[in-house]
Structure formats: structure tokens, C-alpha cells
């Protein structure tokens, strides 16, 4: 397990907002924040770990709750999110202006376990089908579908160059792939309308027999496909899925975002959002 950094609840300043795809916007927030409430502190938004997310709400806002948005990337000064304009809350977030403030709570949740982490080594060692001896290195696939590309792209960029294949599937056009081509072993892109890469869907290009370790985030039908394809593959890749759920608190308090697993209900916000595919019931 990754140890989560302490969360903050504060208002962050918008550095920039720009469209990067159809109804998809890149929102850059400044990490340094000033107090916005009688209790808030001046400070800096903690460094997120790839896979974590924030609850975001524009200020002012006509909605009640923040929306869970994954971190795309960050540096010392800023954090960048990719936001799909879907409903009221995300529409507001896609319409902010530089200098405006956004209410944030985060970073929230667990993270993707890195291929070289001791936890992964442990799981692989005890896996039902041990790896063949000839491949000392794990064969890794990182998969993003639609807006789900944001957290996995951020994660992929933190991995050593040439150690993974990157799959990205979109309806039309692409986004969120900056820097991926330079670092991935192979980049495989599909679009449903053929506007970029191969025409089709992930299932047309993905072969689970090629991998020991798979990371994915995307629409539930795609995650279901990955879960079952990998389960049925003779190589039995270890699969981590980043899940999405309607959320209220993002603190693990309301139990509104539970995910059913083999070990009972888990909270998507703080027990996840990343789960072992062998454990979740999608």
C-alpha cells in the first residue's frame, strides 16, 4: 500500500484552462494556496502520487459537491487535471478563468503500485501461475480509455523509459498523450471513428497473453473487458484498475462510493480508486 500524504481542503488558484479535445479541458492549478476560511492555513497542496485524485468545485459554484478528478501531472508549482465536460459540476470547472479559484480536497486515495515495488514483487511471487524464468523483467501494459487516460498517462510518465506498452482508446481524436511516445516501448492508439491510430476499440488490439502486469483506467465496459480477458489469459497477468464512482465526501465518511469486492464493500475514494481486478465485482 502507498502511504497517503495528508490531505488539504482549500481553494486553489487557476493558472490556466484550455481545451485539449472534444469536451476535454486541461486545468492547471497553482499548488501554493492562501487561506479561504477562518480555519484554513496558508500552504502548499501536497504532492500527489500517480493514481490519486482531488475533489474539485469551481468557485463560485451552483453545485453542492466537488467532483472527483484524477491528477494528470504535477510539478513543484502546479497540478494539472484533464476534465471531461459531462454535467453541471464539470462544465463549471471547464469554464473557469485564470486567476479564479477552485475548491479542492485532496490528494485522495491509494495509487498505482509501481512494477518495481516490493508489493508487486510479493504478489507476482505468490501468483498462481509463476512467471517463466526467461523473462526477468515484467512485461507491463498501461491502458487508458477516454478521460481515463489522465491518471494512467501520469503514472506511465513516472516509469523508467522503455519498460511498458501504452494503449489509449478514444471515441474520436486523442488527448493526454504528451511525452508518452518518447517513453513507452510501444504506443497503440485506437479511435472508434478511425480519426487517429487504428479504427476500433481496445479489444481489437490488446493481447493479454503478452503481459505480466496491466494498469488501466477507463469506462466500465472497457475495464470489464480487461478484467475478463486477463482472467482468461493463460499468462494470468496481474491487473490493477482505477475505478470511478459517484462520490460525496472523498473522505471515506459517507459510504456513497462503495465498490463491491470479494472481500465485501470497499470505499472507492479512500480504499481505492485503484483495485486489484481479481478482487472487484464490476
Amino acid at each position, binding site marked *: 500500500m502507498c502511504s497517503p500524504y*495528508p*490531505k*488539504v*481542503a482549500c481553494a486553489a488558484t487557476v493558472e490556466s484552462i484550455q481545451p485539449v479535445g472534444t469536451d476535454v479541458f486541461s486545468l492547471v492549478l497553482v499548488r501554493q494556496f492562501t487561506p*479561504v*476560511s*477562518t*480555519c*484554513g492555513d496558508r500552504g502548499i497542496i501536497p504532492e500527489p502520487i500517480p493514481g490519486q485524485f482531488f475533489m474539485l*468545485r469551481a468557485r463560485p459554484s*451552483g*453545485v*453542492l*459537491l*466537488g467532483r472527483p478528478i484524477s491528477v494528470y501531472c504535477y510539478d513543484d508549482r502546479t497540478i494539472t487535471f484533464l476534465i471531461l465536460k459531462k454535467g453541471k*459540476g464539470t462544465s463549471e470547472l471547464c469554464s473557469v478563468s485564470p486567476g479564479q479559484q477552485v*475548491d479542492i*480536497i485532496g490528494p485522495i486515495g491509494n495509487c498505482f503500485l509501481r512494477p518495481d515495488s516490493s508489493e508487486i514483487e510479493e504478489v507476482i511471487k505468490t501468483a498462481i501461475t509463476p512467471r517463466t524464468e526467461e523473462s526477468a523483467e515484467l512485461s507491463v501494459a498501461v491502458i487508458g480509455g477516454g478521460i481515463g487516460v489522465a491518471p494512467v498517462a501520469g503514472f506511465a510518465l513516472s516509469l523508467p523509459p522503455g519498460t511498458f506498452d501504452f494503449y489509449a482508446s478514444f471515441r474520436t481524436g486523442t488527448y493526454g498523450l504528451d511525452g508518452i511516445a518518447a517513453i513507452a516501448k510501444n504506443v497503440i492508439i485506437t479511435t472508434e471513428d478511425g480519426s487517429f491510430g487504428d479504427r476500433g476499440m481496445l479489444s481489437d488490439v490488446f493481447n493479454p497473453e503478452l503481459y505480466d502486469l496491466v494498469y488501466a483506467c477507463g469506462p466500465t465496459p472497457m475495464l470489464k473487458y480487461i478484467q475478463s480477458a486477463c482472467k482468461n489469459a493463460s499468462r494470468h497477468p496481474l491487473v490493477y484498475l482505477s475505478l470511478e464512482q*459517484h*462520490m*460525496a*465526501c*472523498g*473522505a*471515506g*465518511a*459517507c*459510504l*456513497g*462510493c*462503495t465498490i*463491491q469486492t470479494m472481500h*465485501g*464493500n470497499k470505499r472507492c475514494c*479512500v480504499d481505492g480508486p485503484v483495485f486489484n481486478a481479481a478482487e472487484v465485482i464490476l
Partner: protein
Amino acid sequence: MSEGTQNMAGKKADLSLKIAGISFTNPIIAASGTFGYGREYSDVIDVSRLGGICSKGLTLEPRSGNTGRRILETPSGLMNSIGLENPGIPHFIEHELPKMLELGPVVIANLSGSTLNTYVEGARLLDASDVHMIELNISCPNVKAGGMAWGLDPKAAATVTKAVRRVTNKPLIVKLSPNALSLVKVAQAVVNVGADVLSLVNTFQGFALDITTGKPVFDNITAGFSGPAIKPLALRMVRDILLGVPQCSPARKFSSVPSELAIRKKHKKNRFVPVIGLGGISCWQDAAEFLMTGASAIQIGTAIFANPHVIGDVITGLETFYGRRS
């Protein structure tokens, strides 16, 4: 009454009070189901500033809650269909309560159940624990058996309150459902059989339909409705209780002077049953409105989700507001 204390930063009121013999540093309580067991928020805010914390709704046996979608935001409101997911009272007492007691605020266990027996057995276990108060939940709208069914009818409400009262000496809050046909009658019935405090309102029962599928949004069909949208309804109901139940006279400490209600009501010789108001409170002004109407304390719930700092803001806001008035 010395309500105000002078300090260097300006005049800040002392908000401390006693409810049913229990000392609170202030009248701000985190509402059940919105604050977990307290620690969930301790990395974001100073939880110790709260007057009290109500636990997530607890049942004797563990419950996995409702299937399907559980949360739906509406204009200025929130529908939830959690369904009392909780680890069971024995687990709560062993694993959650000790840490909850370390947080500082008054610890209130929210007790729910299905049958009368599960309420009573749950109350017995809580009575033997170190929990400070019990909030009897006869108002959860999201479970098929029990919950709100006990809170809609004065007789049923009195039956469960009396049975729980018999097995515990802990101060007993009864949390009322706004869905009762006659809330005043339910309130009077539970007061008559030994409720020490009333809290209201729990969520309103709502319904939502998914027009793309033609099916209800929630597997449990109906769901509990909370948030700023319900505040005027909740406040009206608090006022109804203060007017209609003789024992529930307005608390003097925070009410308007003279209270709008106090002047209407004759002095009662009855024991005093404080009312804790909740429903859509999102800022200190909302809290002051409940307190000035005559509530002894208030609970904050849904508003915490969007802004956990609302708790500190409300406390500071009330300290300043009452400091200025004293």
C-alpha cells in the same frame, strides 16, 4: 448567565453548554452518516473543535447497505441511499469507539435497528460501553425493515423509545423523521416515555427516475434527501416541536431575546427536553437561525462534504456573533 468572555482577538462568546447533563464545548455536532467515526476528517480539519460527533448509523449486526447507485446531487440538495452500511455495534465498540473517544468531542452513538429486539440488544451493548450519549435513529428512510418505520407513528415510536430507555441510563436523544404525518405527536410520544433530547430532522424521503432507462435511479427506489434545499422545512419543523411539545421549550442560551416562541408559551413545570436542530445548515448564519429559534444545539451534515472547514467556520462565526450580542 455569562455568555461572553473577553479575549485579545475581540469579544468571543463562550458557546459551552450542557445537554442532558453532558458538557459540550459548543453546540455544533457532526450529523450521523456524514462524519464516519470522526477520524476520517482528522487529517483535513481540527476535529477536536466540534462539540460532538454522531457516529454513522449503527445496527446490532453488520450491514452491507444498499446496492446500486447511492448518491445523487440535485439543485441545492443531495439524495442518498446508503442503507445503514456499518460494521455492527460490537465491532464499533471494540474498534471505532476507543479512537473516537480520543478525538475530544462528545461521542454520540447513532443506534438503528430493524426489529424491536435488535434495537434493545444494540442499546444494551452501547449502554455498557464508554459512549457518552445514544441517538436513537427511528428515521432512516433507506432500509426496508425498521429504521423510519418506527418513526412515522407515535405508538411505534413510543414502543421502541420505551424499550431502549428501559435498558440504558445513557442520555437518550431520539432522532425524528420529517416524513411522519404528525411530527409533533411522534415527538410528544417519545418525550412521554423518556427521551431526554430530540434531534430533527433526518432526511426527507425522495424519489428520482432515470429518464434514459425509465427506471428508478436507486435500487431501493426511494432515497433520503438532505442539503441546503431542506433548511426551511427543517427549521419550520423544529419550531413546530418547540411550540407543540410542552417539554421542549426553547433553549435560552442562544435564542433571540426574548424568544419569539418563549413569549407565546406559558412557563412549563415539566422537565426540559432540549431540541437539536439539523437539516441543510451550511453556514454560521443558518446555525444561528436554528439556535435563535430555540434549538439547544445544531448538527451539520451534508455541508461538510463540500467544505469540511464549514465546521470551524460555523463555530468561529457563532463565537463572534454571540460575542457581539452579549
